């Protein structure tokens, strides 16, 4: 069982970290989420059928990220209420802005994805960034395959529109 666990950590760990980083925009929080999910996997490994681990891990990571975001919003609401402090938590642990254009573009993309509403954000991460097949994503997010396709299409269009608007605003 230990070998199976190690193989799963090596196989899926990076992918899960990417999902968590894109959803949370905080490396430290993302690492904690991935660690928690892997420990949960270790506890439930004997109950999981071989082949079901990938979907289970993605679901676990996504749910943990959504919980974390809800907690963050609650904390932010509290801070705004008490001190009037705004929007500081959303940029915690952001890497420094690079001067290179590609890095700036990547940063804008990450920020825009993180600000997308669900399930669009998860769909863009799973379908476009990680290129997971439609059936697995549908199963993971409890959607039909057609819903996955259409919602992904809409999310991508929304993201495009936001990026274009941002670019126009910068030019103007």
């Amino acid at each position, binding site marked *: 069982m230990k070998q199976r*666990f*190690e193989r799963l*950590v*090596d196989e899926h*760990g*990076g*992918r899960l*970290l*990417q999902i968590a*980083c*894109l959803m949370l925009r905080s490396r430290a929080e993302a*690492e904690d989420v*991935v*660690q928690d999910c*892997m*420990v949960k996997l*270790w*506890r439930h490994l004997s109950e999981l059928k071989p082949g079901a681990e990938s979907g289970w891990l993605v679901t676990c990571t996504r749910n943990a990220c959504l919980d974390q975001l809800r907690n963050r919003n609650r904390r932010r609401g509290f801070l705004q209420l008490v001190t009037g402090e705004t929007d500081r938590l959303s940029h915690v642990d952001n890497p420094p802005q690079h001067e290179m254009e590609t890095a700036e*573009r*990547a940063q804008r*993309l*990450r920020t825009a*994805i993180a600000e*997308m*509403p669900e399930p*669009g954000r998860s769909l*863009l991460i799973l379908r*476009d*960034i*990680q*290129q997971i097949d439609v059936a697995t994503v549908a199963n993971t997010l409890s959607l039909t395959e*057609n*819903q996955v*396709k*259409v*919602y*992904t*299409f*809409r*999310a*991508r*269009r*929304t*993201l*495009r529109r936001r*990026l274009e608007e941002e670019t126009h605003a910068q030019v103007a």
Partner: protein
Amino acid sequence: MHRSPELSRTELDAEDRVTAPEWPSDDPQLAADRALRHELHGLDESTLPTNLRTRIMKAARRRQQPGWWMGLAAAVFVGLAVALFIEPLDQSGDSPRVTESDLQELHLALASLELGARRAGSATSSQLGQSVITTQINLQEVPYAQHFKRWIQPYLSTTH
């Protein structure tokens, strides 16, 4: 995402065209969608850092420990039970050892019993002999003494 949640055939077909590489991208919207998808795919590396992997393995091992501790606790409990209850019982409960004097007392008791029985038998027979037709019964010596002697003999050899 601001449109109706109902699925439209147009959007479904459009998504199929975006994700199917064999479809020609002469439509500028389709080309832009594909470019964004391509850009998103190359956005970040998906590798697990070594330090995080080490943390995960350590955390998983820590999760194993409760079972191990339970086993250890059970072993300690059993050890304590043996030390506190069974050994004192063994020490306090003297093992039965037969000494020479015990054996002599036993012989004396058996001889007294045998003599008492003979007296009772003769007294009874003399009392009943006048009114009861008696038959001659040749009673032999009661073999109690020999029986107990055989039983006691192994202890006797160990005590000497």
